[in-house]
């Protein structure tokens, strides 16, 4: 692929969300907007290699896409689509030539409607897996194939999932707007949950195509950054979005040290901290400070604060565990869940000794009996008390429950080093 061609592809990707959001706003229909953008990209691939990438590619694509939509659907038999195009045509000068349009577009700034699109994609009337798929497809410009690969489903399944969601948006008339103030907190929570799900899909999973997974983290960070830039600056409602972005940046900063040369998972304890991305850590902590200053505490800020404490410790032994225990305690109060309780117990074990950890862990035995990380945590505490026989037994349980080969390999390595004499 030539450099120019790669630059064109990159431009398509970068401008996709913004142009598509504008076109959906214009036509009120996802399919019409997507077809039109597709047509505009085809034309761009023909013209840009000669003319160069225009100064304002988003405006160029928008202008051409609108014209193409009209050409394509003038003879369309589908009533709804035709209506959408007619609706979008209003106020559009049909007498100008495409060249004049494109020329005109150079000075035009197209309105940024991505926030509306974000709220539509994450409407609670849509299933969460559909919300995530729609965001990746429409806002991030991932293909059906890429989205399918990221979530380990077939492209056919993913295409159906997206088509169903788009039909529901159209047929049930899910609004294309930023929700009214009284709905905003609730809907913002849904948007943040979808973004964090995308991030975690890229960050936490240890199987699958690593390239696409890395891309998911980047896209989630881009979406989070966009959300933060678009919301009223330093308004109390922005506190959690800032917290979410800070959390993702701080997690992502540790990515370079999370895998060893063979692709195995490296635990926090064993990571080479010089390989962490300190620029990202600085950005994340600065953003977290800004969020906390807004005085509206929430779960993303608490998790980001925990992550920041890990990032600030020069060595594992320097970690401020008592403060982390306090933060997990606050998180547990806000969102009681066995997994948060597990982390709280592990942190307590680090802060106040393995007996303290074991005492808290024993309360979770029933809830987390089928969860490998629970047995791993118990094994680690037991080992620290010197009870290698019981530890070995727990490592075996964890090994049996572990979901993938990398996790199993890691547990085996722990088991060997803790083998009873």
């Amino acid at each position, binding site marked *: 692929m030539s450099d120019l061609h790669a630059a064109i592809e990159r431009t398509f990707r970068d401008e996709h969300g913004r142009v598509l959001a504008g076109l959906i706003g214009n036509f009120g229909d996802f399919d019409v907007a997507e077809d039109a953008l597709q047509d505009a990209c085809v034309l761009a691939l023909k013209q840009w290699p000669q003319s160069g990438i225009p100064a304002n590619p988003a405006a160029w694509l928008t202008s051409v896409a609108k014209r193409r939509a009209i050409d394509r659907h003038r003879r369309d038999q589908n009533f709804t689509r035709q209506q959408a195009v007619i609706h979008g045509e209003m106020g559009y000068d049909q007498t100008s030539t495409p060249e004049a349009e494109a020329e005109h577009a150079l000075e035009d700034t197209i309105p940024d409607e991505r926030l509306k699109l974000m709220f539509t994609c994450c409407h609670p*009337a849509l299933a969460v897996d559909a919300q995530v798929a729609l965001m990746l497809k429409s806002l991030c410009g991932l293909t059906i194939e890429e989205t399918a690969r990221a979530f380990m489903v077939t492209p056919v399944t993913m295409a159906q999932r997206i088509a169903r969601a788009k039909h529901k948006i159209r047929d049930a*008339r899910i*609004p294309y707007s930023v*929700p*009214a103030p009284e709905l905003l907190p609730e809907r913002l929570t849904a948007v943040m949950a979808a973004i964090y799900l995308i991030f975690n899909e890229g960050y936490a999973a240890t199987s699958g195509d690593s390239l696409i997974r890395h891309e998911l983290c980047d896209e989630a960070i881009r979406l989070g950054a966009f959300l933060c830039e678009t919301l009223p600056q330093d308004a109390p409602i922005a506190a959690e979005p800032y917290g979410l972005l800070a959390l993702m940046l701080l997690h992502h900063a540790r990515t370079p040290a999370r895998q060893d040369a063979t692709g195995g998972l490296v635990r926090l304890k064993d990571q080479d901290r010089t390989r962490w991305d300190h620029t990202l850590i600085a950005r994340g902590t600065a953003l977290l400070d800004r969020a906390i200053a807004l005085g509206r505490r929430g779960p993303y800020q608490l998790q980001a604060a925990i992550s920041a404490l890990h990032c600030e410790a020069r060595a594992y032994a320097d970690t401020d565990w008592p403060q982390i225990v306090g933060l997990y305690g606050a998180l547990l109060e806000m969102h009681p869940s066995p997994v948060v309780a597990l982390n709280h117990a592990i942190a307590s074990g680090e802060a106040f000794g393995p007996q303290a950890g074991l005492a808290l862990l024993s309360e979770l035995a029933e809830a987390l009996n089928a969860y490998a990380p629970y047995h791993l945590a118990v094994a680690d505490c037991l080992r620290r008390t010197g009870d290698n026989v019981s530890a070995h037994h727990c490592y075996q349980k964890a090994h049996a429950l572990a979901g993938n080969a990398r996790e199993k390999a890691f547990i085996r390595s722990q088991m060997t080093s803790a083998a009873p004499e």
Partner: protein
Amino acid sequence: MKYMLLIYGREDRNLSEAEVGAEMQAYFALNTELATRGALVAGEALMPVSTATTVRVRGGEALVTDGPFAETHEVLGGYYVVDAPDLDAAIAIAKKIPGALDGSVEVRPLVVFG
């Protein structure tokens, strides 16, 4: 756009007379509000499911049976048809239906023919 709001709930709630009265008042208030806003297209309460008859036509033959005898605890007890600009507006109305407090309300857009 028209939406049907299907109100599902339990029939074995054993409400006191005062509770039934309060619920009726809440429904009347909602009816007035929707009618004033021009959002009310229709709305009715249904007789208990024990009065229901099910009709199926199979191979030209009408099969009429007692029921439905669904084992589910929540049954269709009433409905509204409302005119709302979009799903959020329809959901906002659904949230106000007293039946949503102890049952559930299903929001379904109506098909527009033509």
